[in-house]
């Protein structure tokens, strides 16, 4: 099988095709109306088709003329490539300049990308399960339990799941972080900001 020259283009293109088609098909269920009096389905149908077409174009481009991956594709916040990497002084060999290993959890060892970072040319290969699933689960847990369990238990669970997202984090440490976050949230949101949220929900008899 022909391999795409840019998986980023392929993935993005397929997502757009899928979502575009979904919107277009969904729109068919609504009244389309006419040009004079557009119904609720008109705009979503047209734009869904446009999105799918753009997706196809991006997929085709993935095989024919991909974006020159490293350095070309810009990063989340925008014009990452505007400053050529060479111009960003990272002090020669930044990775060797991590100060003392003792500060294993300090800023020094925290890897935080900059906008000069080059995205992975093979995005899906670069997506790790643990952080992605854990963060999704953490936020999802809050959504599903905040009404039933109440603010504090939901916060605890979310904090625990989120803390576990980082590869290498042990359960005990994650538990400590979760407890700390629950206490902090209680102080900030319930005591200081006085938000009227149920601290414990119906499921717990609160």
């Amino acid at each position, binding site marked *: 099988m022909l391999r795409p020259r840019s998986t980023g283009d392929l993935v993005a293109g397929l997502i757009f095709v899928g979502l575009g088609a979904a919107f277009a098909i969904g729109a068919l269920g609504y009244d389309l109306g006419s040009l*004079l009096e557009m119904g609720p389905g008109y705009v979503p149908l047209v734009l869904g088709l446009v999105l799918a077409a753009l997706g196809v174009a991006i997929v085709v481009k993935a095989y024919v003329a991909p974006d020159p991956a490293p350095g070309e594709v810009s990063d989340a916040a925008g014009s990452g490539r505007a400053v050529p990497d060479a111009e960003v002084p990272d002090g020669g060999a930044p990775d060797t300049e991590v100060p003392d290993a003792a500060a294993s959890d300090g800023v020094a060892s925290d890897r935080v*990308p900059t906008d000069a970072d080059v995205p992975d040319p093979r995005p899906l290969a670069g997506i790790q399960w643990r952080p992605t699933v854990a963060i999704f689960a953490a936020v999802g847990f809050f959504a599903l339990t905040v009404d039933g369990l109440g603010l504090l238990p939901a916060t605890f669970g979310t904090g625990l799941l989120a803390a576990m997202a980082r590869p290498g984090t042990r359960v005990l440490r994650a538990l400590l972080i*979760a407890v700390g976050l629950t206490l902090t949230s209680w102080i900030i949101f319930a005591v200081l900001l006085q938000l009227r949220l149920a601290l414990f929900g119906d499921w717990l008899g609160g």
Partner: protein
Amino acid sequence: MDLLDNLALGFSEALQWHNVLFCLLGVALGTAVGVLPGIGPTATIALLLPITFGFDDPTSALIMLAGIYYGAQYGGSTTAILLNLPGESSAAVTAIDGHEMARAGRAGVALAVAAIGSFVAGTVATVVLAVAAPVLARAALSFGSAEYFSLVVLGLIASIALASGSMLKALAMIVLGILLGTLGQDMYTGTPRFTFGVRELYQGLNFVALAVGMFGIAEILRNLHDPRTRTRLVSRVTNLWPSRTELRQIAGPVLRATGLGSLLGVLPGGGHVLASYASYAVEKRVSRNPSEFGHGAIEGVAGPESANNAAAQTSFIPLLTLGLPANPVMALMAGAFIIQGITPGPDVMTEQPALVWGLIASMWIGNVLLVLLNLPLIGLWVRMLSVPYSVLFPAIVVFACIGTYSLSQNPYDVLAVAVFGVLGFVLIRSGCEPAPLLLGFVLGPLLEDNLRRALLLSRGDPTVFVTRPISGVLLALAAVALVVTVLPMIRRKRDVVFAEDD
């Protein structure tokens, strides 16, 4: 004189003690979150937005948000200078020379220059805003649906033309944003669209949930995926005040950057990011010793920092006069307006003068507070940088959840955060930018509404968009912008403009 009356009204509003307090609180909070590594102004505002929703007085809420914006921006520069960790690409430029200055023991001077430059630029840009806004708003009042539709199209297209990265993907992200904006009840017929029978979705996707997901959660996922270290904390910040010579050195760059930034800030899609890059390029070109750039040139800090602050201020112009957010931050501000029950646009100027002028005046006050607050507190901000990331990111996740939920106690909003966090992350990884999606989402309903209304008024005649002169001109401009972006030859030149070569 009108201008003075307006400013007087604004200052009397903004100087009420509670508004000053909210401004101060906003600046402090914005700096505190903005200083955290890897979080840029957009993410900061998205995360802090929910705090302001409980306010009864919209003026206070917006003043606080504006304060958060400047604070976040300044916080971003602080990390860029001290850690070489720009939270957003506008600060990436500051990092180049700012961090070199810090390594040479001039961190204090670099931070002070950034603050002084921002203050001067902010002051001038506030005046520009005060002068330009009423004029534009008056012109905008004559706009009909066709004009508005064309204006939104122009804004969306221009935001691609001025941004970098793949144009096809940016276009697709805009379209996806508009489609997501169609969720909820159709405004003409009341038909619920794409709600899957869920009542909570009738009002549409929550804008804050989308922004928190795409900018906050996706950003955390990105940080968790990139195990790279390039941080060296410069912990000692001494000698804040620049010398006389240094002050003379930065006078030119600050003034040039202010002009440049004020101009670029008004353009859609450009905003503060484009302004910083352009200013850096200009300063390097006019400098007598360009070789110093990249090795701690003070002009390389003063210019971009002033430019991005000026642009931050003037990018309020399209929002306040036309109701068009020029960049994601303004899209968030527009969202805040709407949640406060105010539709941003030309009418706001005449109907709520106290609010608009209070906001404008508070921008200047915010800049003063920024200088007063941040320079003495540098030590505190530096200490915040030592919070380990393993504690920091779960905290951000938790606060994002609680904040989003507290908006309207709707768990579906939080679910949307989860979905758009992961979707946004995958799209970002695939080389798509989240900003166009957010712009499309905010402008989409405006686009559809005006399209349908214009066609209704013209009895279904689609030529109305080109036969009405203003609308025609706007669409022609949009077409030119699109062609310029697509043509590969010009496209390559555009890259040269961005990537100033040595």
